[in-house]
């Protein structure tokens, strides 16, 4: 790792000021993506701004009927939170499937969302549930946040403080995970919301995306039968040594089917072991 300055501000404003004046400074939350990437010497930071000194960023609570999760809430806190389990159990289950227990002890929702890894799990939940990302400057709809490979609409100095999730009628996440990396080869989040069914897919393209053809079909009837004969046309799907794009297209359909099944019968396992 190249050396950098280490800063640990006590407030979001202070952190944001440093980040706004130093274009090569980066915020750090759990460090579970930032530090492995920095170790590869692909990037050189002037400063790492540790958000660990900012109090109150890890709260999980209900607010006006929505579930609000602070940016520094760790994966382990989300998976074990009774508030999350009561409001959106699918989100707790998703957190339980991230990486391994030691990664979950450190990694946070804000870091995962800001990182926008094409194979990360949380982005599927944000897009599938129609969540809102709260930053120190504004609120951004999940639909507008994920713009490309590791790219978001966040600006320099903009810090995620929380994610707000509307509570769906039902939701489930199904993940076909890579056995070594544990990231999603394909993951599908299906949610029945007041405005209809939303389907978000991660792992399959440069960034998380929705599948309108499945949404239309499932909004008429949330059932596996509704999926029969629906063959969405995808743009560029990822192809790598784990899965060709044709295979990924097939697995998307299968993960959506499993997520629908898990919505209807919440006790069915939706994760490969």
């Amino acid at each position: 790792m190249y050396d950098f300055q280490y800063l640990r501000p006590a407030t979001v404003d202070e952190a944001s000021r440093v980040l706004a004046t130093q274009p090569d400074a980066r915020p750090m939350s759990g460090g579970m993506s930032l530090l492995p990437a920095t170790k590869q010497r692909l990037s050189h930071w002037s400063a790492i701004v540790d958000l660990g000194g900012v109090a109150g960023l890890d709260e999980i609570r209900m607010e006006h009927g929505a579930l609000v999760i602070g940016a520094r809430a760790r994966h382990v806190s989300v998976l074990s939170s009774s508030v999350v389990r009561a409001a959106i159990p699918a989100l707790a289950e998703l957190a339980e499937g991230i990486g391994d227990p030691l990664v979950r002890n450190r990694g946070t929702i804000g870091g995962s969302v800001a990182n926008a890894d094409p194979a990360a799990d949380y982005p599927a939940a944000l897009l599938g549930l129609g969540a809102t990302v709260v930053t120190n400057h504004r609120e951004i709809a999940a639909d507008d946040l994920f713009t490309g490979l590791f790219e978001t609409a966040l600006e320099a100095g903009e810090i995620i403080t929380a994610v707000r999730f509307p509570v769906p009628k039902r939701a489930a996440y199904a993940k076909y995970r890579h056995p070594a990396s544990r990231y999603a080869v394909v993951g599908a989040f299906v949610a029945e919301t007041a405005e209809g069914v939303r389907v978000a897919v991660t792992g399959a393209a440069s960034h998380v995306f929705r599948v309108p053809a499945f949404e239309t079909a499932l909004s008429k009837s949330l059932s596996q039968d509704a999926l029969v004969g629906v063959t969405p046309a995808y743009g560029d799907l990822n192809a790598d040594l784990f899965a060709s794009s044709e295979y990924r297209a097939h697995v998307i359909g299968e993960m959506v089917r499993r997520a629908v099944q898990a919505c209807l019968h919440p006790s069915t396992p939706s994760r490969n072991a």
Partner: protein
Amino acid sequence: MPLVTMTVNGTAVSAEVEARTLLAEFLRNDLEMTGTHVGCDTTQCGCCTVHLDGVGVKSCTVLAVACQGAQVLTIEGLATGDALHPMQAAFREHHGLQCGFCTPGMIMSALDMVRRKGHDLDERLVRHELEGNICRCTGYHNIVKAIQAGASAMKGA
């Protein structure tokens, strides 16, 4: 260089370190406590597992400077004199190691598992919870048995 002070296995330590120093490097190079191993560059193997303020972490992916004021427990802090910790004793009893490279991480991770999941651990759960620790020798079978036995031995301890 920033000065960092923390408590390692009950002893206060402090040193000037570069900001980029990882907790694993601090333990191994500055404190010369080489029980904590480093087996990968990608935060996947778990050989470097220690407890930071009571919670299992991969010390290769934590900055030493971020541990200012923290309590750190490493494999060296488990035994009392010559008496092994019950989890260490269980690894010996059940042949839970061959080359031993992964063992410090396995044991620290096992103790985090007991903290989170209690003393009665079924095989499936142990295998699932061990996802962050890689062993190239044993095939895991005896590690799983050792962790189950160690966890239940700790109940009496």
